[in-house]
C-alpha cells in the first residue's frame, strides 16, 4: 500500500495541506501538513480550540477535510469505506464513551463481535486485553462501567480500542479526567504498553509534561495551524516563542518546587 521508496520508515498517516472549515465558515484548521511513520507516537499539543481534536477526527474520518487531503496507509480517507477505516483505527476519548448498558466484557469485545470473530476467540481476547491494561479479568469482566473508578474506566477504554489489534491508535486527552496520581500511574503503564505493542499512536493533549513523556515527536498547534514538529529534546530547547512558552511554564513549576 505504501511506497517502498520512502525508505525504512513507512508513512502510515499523512496530512497534505489540510484545512477544515465549519459550515458557518469558521476555520478550525488551515494548511496543516505532516507525516507519521509507522510505530511513532505523535503528540498533538496545543491549547483548547487550537484544532488538535479536529485533526485527530480527520484521521478516522469522523470529519472530512474541507481542503487538502488526509492519507491513511497511502489512501485518502475520503476513498476509504469509513467503517473499514475506523475498524483499523482504535479510538480512545476522554470520557471513554464506554457503553453504560454493556459489561466490561461486552464493551471490550464489541469490535471483535462486529467483525464476526468466533465466540471462543472473542472471549479469550477480552481476558487477554484486560490483563494487558492491568485489570484482573476474573474481577472486572462482569462489571458495568458505573461500577468502575475513573482510572479503571480509562483502562477499559484503552482495552476496547485495542481489541481488534488496530495498527493505529487515536487518543483524545485520554488521561485528562483522572486525578494527578492516577494519571501519572496510567501514563507510566501506557509508556510500557506502547513499547510492547509498537502501534502508531496519535495523542491529543494540552499537558506539556504528558507530551514530553509520551511522545516520540510533538506537533505544536496554535490557532488552527501547525507551528512545528519537534522531538521532546528539540521541544525543550526550542526558541520558537509558542514552544518556549510551554517549556517556561514547566520551568515555573520546577522553580516553584525548588523554592519550597
Amino acid at each position, binding site marked *: 500500500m505504501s511506497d517502498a521508496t520512502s525508505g525504512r520508515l513507512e508513512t502510515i498517516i499523512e496530512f497534505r495541506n489540510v484545512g477544515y472549515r465549519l459550515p458557518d465558515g469558521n476555520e478550525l484548521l488551515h494548511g496543516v501538513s505532516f507525516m507519521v511513520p509507522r510505530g511513532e507516537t505523535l503528540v498533538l499539543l496545543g491549547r483548547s480550540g487550537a484544532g488538535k481534536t479536529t485533526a485527530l477526527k480527520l484521521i*478516522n474520518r*469522523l470529519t472530512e477535510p474541507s481542503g487538502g487531503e488526509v492519507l491513511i496507509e497511502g489512501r485518502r480517507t475520503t476513498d476509504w469505506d469509513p*467503517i473499514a477505516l*475506523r*475498524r483499523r483505527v482504535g479510538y480512545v*476519548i476522554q470520557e471513554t*464513551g464506554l457503553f453504560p448498558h454493556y459489561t466490561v466484557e461486552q464493551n471490550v469485545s*464489541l469490535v471483535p463481535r*462486529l467483525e464476526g470473530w468466533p465466540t471462543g476467540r472473542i472471549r479469550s481476547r477480552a481476558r487477554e486485553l484486560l490483563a494487558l491494561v492491568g485489570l484482573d479479568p476474573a474481577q472486572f469482566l462482569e462489571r458495568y462501567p*458505573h461500577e468502575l473508578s475513573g482510572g479503571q474506566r480509562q483502562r477499559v477504554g484503552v482495552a476496547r480500542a485495542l481489541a481488534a489489534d488496530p495498527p493505529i491508535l487515536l487518543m483524545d486527552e485520554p488521561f485528562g479526567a483522572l486525578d494527578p496520581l492516577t494519571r501519572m500511574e496510567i501514563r507510566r503503564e501506557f509508556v510500557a504498553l506502547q513499547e510492547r505493542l509498537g502501534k502508531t499512536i496519535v495523542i491529543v493533549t494540552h499537558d506539556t509534561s504528558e507530551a514530553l513523556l509520551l511522545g516520540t515527536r510533538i506537533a505544536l498547534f496554535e490557532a488552527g495551524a501547525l507551528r512545528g514538529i519537534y522531538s521532546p529534546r528539540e521541544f525543550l530547547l526550542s526558541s520558537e516563542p509558542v514552544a518556549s512558552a510551554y517549556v517556561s511554564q514547566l520551568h515555573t513549576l520546577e522553580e516553584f518546587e525548588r523554592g519550597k
Partner: protein
Amino acid sequence: MSLTDFFSRHANEILQATLEHVWLVGATMLLAIAIGVPLGVLVARRPWLSRPILGSANIAETIPSLALLGFLLPVPWLGDRADRLAITALTLYALLPIIRNTAAGIAGVDPAVREAARGMGMTQRQILFHVELPLSLSTVLAGVRVATVLTIGIATIAAAVGAGGLGEFIFRGLAMVNNQLILAGAIPAAALALGADFLLSVLERRLRPAR
C-alpha cells in the same frame, strides 16, 4: 341495591366489557408503538422533520375525541368496523407522547458514547439498535406509560360508535341517569389505568440504565 350487589350481579358483563376495553387499548398501544417509535427516531435524526411530525401529532391530540370518531366514520375501510374505527382514533391520540419521548430519549444519549460508537466503526443502524434505543428504552417506556393511561381513559368514548368496552356502561348510565351503571364503567377503567401505570413504571425503573 348497593353498589357491591350491583357489581356482583353484573360481574360477567363487567368482565366482558373490561376485556373488550383491554383489547381496544392493547391493540392501540401496539399500533402506536409500531408507528410512534420509528417516527420518534426520525425526529431525532432529521431535525427538519421534527416540526411537521410533532406538529401533526399535536394537532391530532387537540381534536375532541367524539368529533374525531365522527370524522373517521365516513372513511371507507375504517368506518366498516367499529373497533377498527376506534383503534385508529385512539392510536392518533397515543402517538404524541411516544414520538416525543423516543426523540427525547435518543437526543439524551451521551454524545461521548455516540462518538465512541462511531469511532469504533459501528454503522448508523448498529448505533441505533445497539446503543441509542437500548439507552433510551426507559424514556420511551415513560412515553408508552403516559399514552397507555391516556388511552384507557379515552377508550371509554369508543362505545359511542359501538366498539364496546367499559364506555358501554357509562353511556348507558348517562342515558338512564343511573350512577351505578356509570360507576360500573368508570371504576374498572380507573383501576385499569392505575394498574397499567404501576406495572409500566416498575418496568421503566428496571430498564433505566445505571449511571
